[in-house]
């Protein structure tokens, strides 16, 4: 083994090597405040360019930042819901020249962030470590004119500072994700938490949630981390997955062909489905961080933090747990889906109102994808009870449910209005006996063990009753007659 392969995990590995992808995510979320992080102009998406501006967000000489209390509260909410330690923190200046930065430095938190050492639990139960979740200000926006709007070919650019100074929380996760899918789950879960605690609207398409991903690869079983690349411009969950898959494939191919990975920042291009190098580690910028002298240390009192903790809503993870306990036989991803769609409260209420959990969850997952409308938990509970008692077939129940979603009311009334009157067992027996004598050949083949004919008889019953009968009850009856 050469020295190179010792240093670089997987360098020159055989083509049939099994690889592991290692992903760490940095998520920036815009906080749902009324005003900016350090000034009173509105924090609002869109609007005419340069209309949400004030001396601070424009970096005018003589302007001074003053910290927004709500942004701090939201940051603490995020920290607590990510199981972080909330600590005394300070703001720092990150110095670099760029026209979308009004002061040519960004006020961020550097070596003393507000939230540290937390974790996030994926629906699978896996815990991903959170290094920190800190406060910082957003930049303005530039549009590039000419050259197809691409930054490198543009003739000139225009700058809008509406977004400058919008509060961000940057959540830095440990590199503990192992696939594109896991990364998507992480972002989905993080977004649900941010939305649940009211910290952010989580809209990736409006840029209020932005993801940078650090990707590296290594042969399975190797402990050392490979050289990572940071991928920017990932604007949706779909491109997150695609970008990670592309990038890990690229790195694997490069290592197999004997070339080490260069630490780079890369740009995801949605159109060609590739990542492109922006700059390498050697070009690393010297940000000259130092404590922001215009702001005071931030030291939230223990009482305030406790008050915020008390007021936190139940988090997705705990909601999943409650639902899983109430519906122990239902698959985990169905439980997760119900919580993600915020149907867990309905499901829990229906189950505790006496509805059998599996049937409740079947409706929640399969038949209520478009929302619950006028449906109350009580009527969902009595609907599944009717199904359980054989008063409604699955097909009928689905139709009744649609009526309940549309206009509310009780399932009994809805079933009646649809003409779904349950057949009593005597009526069904008479019908089945009639069919047996009408189709002697089919009956004898069925009696000889040809079970395919179950379908024939059930079909005949349904045809005659126009779907009123319960297929399961018919099958039971046929088997009983066969003896």
């Amino acid at each position: 083994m050469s020295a190179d392969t010792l240093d670089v995990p997987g360098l020159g590995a055989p083509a049939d090597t099994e690889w592991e992808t290692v992903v760490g995510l940095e998520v920036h979320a815009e906080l749902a405040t009324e005003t900016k992080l350090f000034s009173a102009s509105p924090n609002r998406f869109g609007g005419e360019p340069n209309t949400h501006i004030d001396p601070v967000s424009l970096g005018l000489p003589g302007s001074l930042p003053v910290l927004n209390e709500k942004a701090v509260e939201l940051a603490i909410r995020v920290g607590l819901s990510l199981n972080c330690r909330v600590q005394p923190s300070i703001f720092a200046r990150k110095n670099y020249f760029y026209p979308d930065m009004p002061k040519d430095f960004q006020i961020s938190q550097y070596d003393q962030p507000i939230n540290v050492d937390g974790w996030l639990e994926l629906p699978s139960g896996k815990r991903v470590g959170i290094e920190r979740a800190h406060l910082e200000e957003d930049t303005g926006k530039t549009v590039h004119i000419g050259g197809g709007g691409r930054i490198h070919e543009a003739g000139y650019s225009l700058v809008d500072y509406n977004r400058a100074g919008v509060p961000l929380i940057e959540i830095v996760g440990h590199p503990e994700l192992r696939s594109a899918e896991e990364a998507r789950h992480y972002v989905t879960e993080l977004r649900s938490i941010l939305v649940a605690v009211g910290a952010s609207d989580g809209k990736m398409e409006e840029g209020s949630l932005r993801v940078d991903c650090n990707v590296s690869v290594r042969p399975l079983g190797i402990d050392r981390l490979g050289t990572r690349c940071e991928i920017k411009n990932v604007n949706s969950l779909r491109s997150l997955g695609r970008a990670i898959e592309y990038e890990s494939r690229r790195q694997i191919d490069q290592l197999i062909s004997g070339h080490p990975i260069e630490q780079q920042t890369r740009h995801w291009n949605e159109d060609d489905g590739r990542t492109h190098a922006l700059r390498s580690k050697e070009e690393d910028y010297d940000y000259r961080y130092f404590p922001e002298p215009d702001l005071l240390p931030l030291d939230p009192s223990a009482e305030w933090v406790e008050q915020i903790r008390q007021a936190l809503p139940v988090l997705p993870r705990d909601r999943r747990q409650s639902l899983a306990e109430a519906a122990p036989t239902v698959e985990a991803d169905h439980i997760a889906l119900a919580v993600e769609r915020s149907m867990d409260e309905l499901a829990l209420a229906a189950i505790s109102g006496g509805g059998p959990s599996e049937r409740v969850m079947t409706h929640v997952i399969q038949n209520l994808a478009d929302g619950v409308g006028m449906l109350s938990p009580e009527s969902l509970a009595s609907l599944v009870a009717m199904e359980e008692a054989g008063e409604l077939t699955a097909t009928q129940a689905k139709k009744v449910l649609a009526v309940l979603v549309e206009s509310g009311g009780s399932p009994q009334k809805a079933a009646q209005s649809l003409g779904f009157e349950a057949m009593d067992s005597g009526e069904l027996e008479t019908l089945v006996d009639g069919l047996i004598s009408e189709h002697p050949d089919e009956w004898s083949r069925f009696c000889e063990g040809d079970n395919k004919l179950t379908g024939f008889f059930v079909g005949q019953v349904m045809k005659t009753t126009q779907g009123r009968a319960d297929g399961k009850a018919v099958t039971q009856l046929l088997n009983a007659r066969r003896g």
Partner: protein
Amino acid sequence: MAALARLELTDEELDRFTGQLDELLDHVAEVEALDVEGLPPTMHALPIANLLRPDTPGEVLDRDEVLSQAPVAENGQFRVPPILGEAP
């Protein structure tokens, strides 16, 4: 250092400044000899913390007034020559 500060110095300036900066750095180097081990750095002379502002919208600047001060403006925005690359 000049590039980092977005300054371009002429040869004459560079000559003059280098000597002057060396002299200053020599002088301030006296702080290096001081034993300040264990002392916390002072960022603020006064021990105050936690000034917070309520999240209430206030006045915004008039865009035309602001853009009238801009070296070049277009379409309600500040116009700049090509930026060349993404932020570092």
